[in-house]
């Protein structure tokens, strides 16, 4: 029990990592529970609700569900960026688990040497994997 506390909740960084890992797992569970065939997702596209038109992220939930069912071609047909975004979350999950385990004994290491590479890696991954989305957002035609 003490070891578990040390690993997951001993300092703010561990707590943040644990919560983020849990949140990513929740996304995957959400994708696994709801299916593209039934289209019974409780969260609807905000863009479609407001403007009535499709956006770049339309079909992402269905794409994630297809990936969870290992139907990759179907996922791409729902949203061409679904695998890319799914990969981002998957890599992030591995990173959270890696940093959680790596930082098991924070007293013995300077936390800055872990946090700074983590921030750098996560930022680069975000820029690379979300490239179509931020590019679209920055070059929006008003």
């Amino acid at each position, binding site marked *: 029990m003490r070891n578990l506390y040390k690993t997951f909740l001993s300092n*703010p960084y561990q*707590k*943040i990592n644990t*919560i*983020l890992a849990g*949140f990513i797992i929740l996304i995957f569970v959400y994708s696994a529970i709801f299916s593209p065939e039934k289209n019974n997702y409780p*969260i609807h*596209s*905000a*863009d*479609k609700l*407001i*403007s*009535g*038109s499709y*956006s*770049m*992220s*339309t079909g*992402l*939930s269905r794409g994630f569900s297809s990936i969870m069912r290992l139907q990759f071609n179907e996922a791409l047909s729902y949203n061409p960026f679904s695998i890319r975004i799914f990969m*981002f979350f998957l890599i992030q999950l591995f990173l959270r688990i890696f940093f959680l385990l790596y930082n098991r004994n924070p007293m013995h290491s300077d936390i800055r040497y872990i946090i700074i590479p983590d921030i750098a890696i996560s930022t680069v991954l*975000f820029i690379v994997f*979300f490239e179509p*989305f*931020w590019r679209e*957002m920055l070059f*929006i035609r*008003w």
Partner: protein
Amino acid sequence: MNNSKNPSAGLGLGIAGLVLGIISIPFGIMGCTFMLALVMGILGITLSAVGYSQAKQANASTGLIIAALIISILGTSFALIRLTHSTSKSIDIFDSWKIKLEEFEGRSDEFGDSFENAFEEGFREEYEEDIDLDFDELENNLDRLERDLENMGDDIEKAFENLSDEEKARRLGKATGKALRGFVDELSDTVEIN
């Protein structure tokens, strides 16, 4: 003023704010989830701000809380950009539909006028006399007829309530026969006139 040092003052709120802020960034950048990101971002800013004030009061470190505040503001900004974009798109769509509706209304008026003229012309050709058509009155009469038919339907339903199916069929058949007879008589008169 409380100068006692509590190193973890506001830290819990800062952590919550940071997590919400981090999640709001990818969610805010996507068109489908920006409303979720907006809520998370605003919540993140609020929690971080409260955490910051608590940390300041207790002379605790504020590094993590400031990071939470900055990240939450970033996530909220992304969501706001998306919201503005989405709203402007919906206004564009509304405007284009308004223009289409106005065009249709214009065409509909033209169609109505053409129909009225053609109808009068056809009537004149057929009967060799002018007709003074009042379409509003015609419409009112049709509405009245529709209401009468509805009322009649209710009366028939009441009258037929306690009748057997056989009796219902007999009465309906008789009424239909009479109506058909009347219709044929009217039609014969019209043919005779022509």
